[in-house]
């Protein structure tokens, strides 16, 4: 009963992830994703009524930090991996709405 992922769905997900794919890749990823979802779908065979949904395997609460200043990076550290920079700014291709 595995769900079949259509070529269009793969194309949509790829576009959202900014991935370029040719027809062959679309077909291949469609098969892979269908297989993965089919595997995970095994979980549907278990009766989970009465089990609270959770997004984590550990049952913990999130820890807090106090609102106290710590060290930031230096400009050099922050900008070290920037493909392009201008002064203390990161430089990117123009984005104008």
């Amino acid at each position, binding site marked *: 009963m595995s769900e079949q992922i259509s070529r269009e769905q793969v194309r949509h997900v790829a576009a959202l992830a900014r991935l370029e794919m040719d027809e062959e890749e679309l077909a291949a990823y469609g098969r892979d994703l269908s297989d993965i979802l089919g595997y995970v779908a095994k979980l549907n065979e278990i009766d989970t009524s009465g089990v609270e949904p959770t997004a984590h395997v550990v049952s913990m609460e999130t820890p807090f930090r106090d609102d106290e200043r*710590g060290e*930031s990076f230096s*400009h050099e550290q922050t900008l070290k991996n920037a493909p392009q920079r201008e002064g203390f*700014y990161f430089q990117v291709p123009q984005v104008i709405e």
Partner: protein
Amino acid sequence: MNFEVVIGLEVHAQLLTKTKIFCSCSTTFGDEPNANTCPVCTGLPGALPVLNRRVVEYAIRAGLATNCRIAERSVFARKNYFYPDLPKGYQISQYDLPICEDGFLDIFVDGEQKRIGITRIHMEEDAGKLVHPDDYSGVSYVDYNRACVPLLEIVSEPDMRSSAEAVAYLKGLRDILMYLEICDGNMEEGSFRCDANVSIRPFGQEEFGIRAELKNMNSFRNVQRAIDYEVERQREILEQGGRVIQETRLWDADQNISRSMRGKEEAHDYRYFPDPDLLPVVVEPSWIEAVRKSLPELPQAKRDRFMAEYGLPAADADILIGSRPLADYFEAAAAAAGNAKMVSNWILSELLRRLNDDKGSIESCPVSPAGLAGLLKLIENGTISGKIAKQVFAAMYAEGNDDAAGIVKARGLVQIDDRQALEEIVRRVLAAHPDEVEKFRQGKTKVFGFLVGQVMRETRGKANPGLVNELLRRELEG
């Protein structure tokens, strides 16, 4: 055809924490680009966000002050999209389990009270700032100082039916956040931002019309104009048999028009999912109760109390509660002076007028509440007239001098109450203006004011006005 306007508002309020929501970088505005950044807020691989406790506390404060239910368990989610101001490729926000839900805010428009529902309040991180060079050089610059600065997103129900109601809601909400001291409320600098969802429908129709989302309104005035413009735009479309399309429109305050934001229409698909880096936020009831106890008196409660306790009219109270420091100033001066209505009159006229002219704030007012009270006492005990008091106040304000009595003494402004001396002056004035005296006696009593003015002029404004009236009248009629 008559249309009903439907407005819902989304507010983003920047919180006044020292540090960012998930890292210990400073939130200071105006530092050098990228000075306040670290692996967490620039989204370097492997960096882990840790939640700032104060952000949660501020969210609880906002929720309680707007009558929301505080969730004992809420969840951070990733909102996925690509944009250069978003270093991780997702914004950490809250989705199906926000921290506050189901609140309301009461507004007053034209003397009518109306309740506006608040759907939810959630915590999230801000994005960085893009800078576009003036020359067309094909590049943009990115500053991540603002990335990860804590925001509250406050979403209203589509309960507002006019731009005036929308502005009243925004003002009320901003006042509350400022009273809570969790947001500075600065709309121009973007620490209090608003998006408006606007649609219209024929009266009586239950179903909502297609809405447009308005952005980029950085003042109450612009919110009002942008909504009015949008309502007219949609009305014209519908009246010509057209269809409104769902879109985002940017307000252009220079030209007073809005423009469609093309390219953003493609259906958003944010693929929200719970952020695996952050565990559920658990808020114990004892924490909520502690925050509840620490809440300050809120604007509407203060307004009601000012009217009941000091006997102020609603119009006075509305202005005085405009900010906590102004309300505190009034209360301090009223306590020192005794006559609250007189204090209110002076604050609303002389004091605020001067502060507005100087673009000053009450916090930096050169005259203290005690100084103002001292001045008003001089009027009440007859040392000076109200008119002279304005001169004295001007001097106090200009010099930052609280000693009203000292100024009155040094400049010889003490009111002339000497009956004999004033009688002499009155006689002199009447002798100098026989024509006016004649007119008065023929029944043209309007010249009385002129004669009073002449006496005041002779005394450089220092004569006791009541006494001058009495003496003049006696001389003229007697």
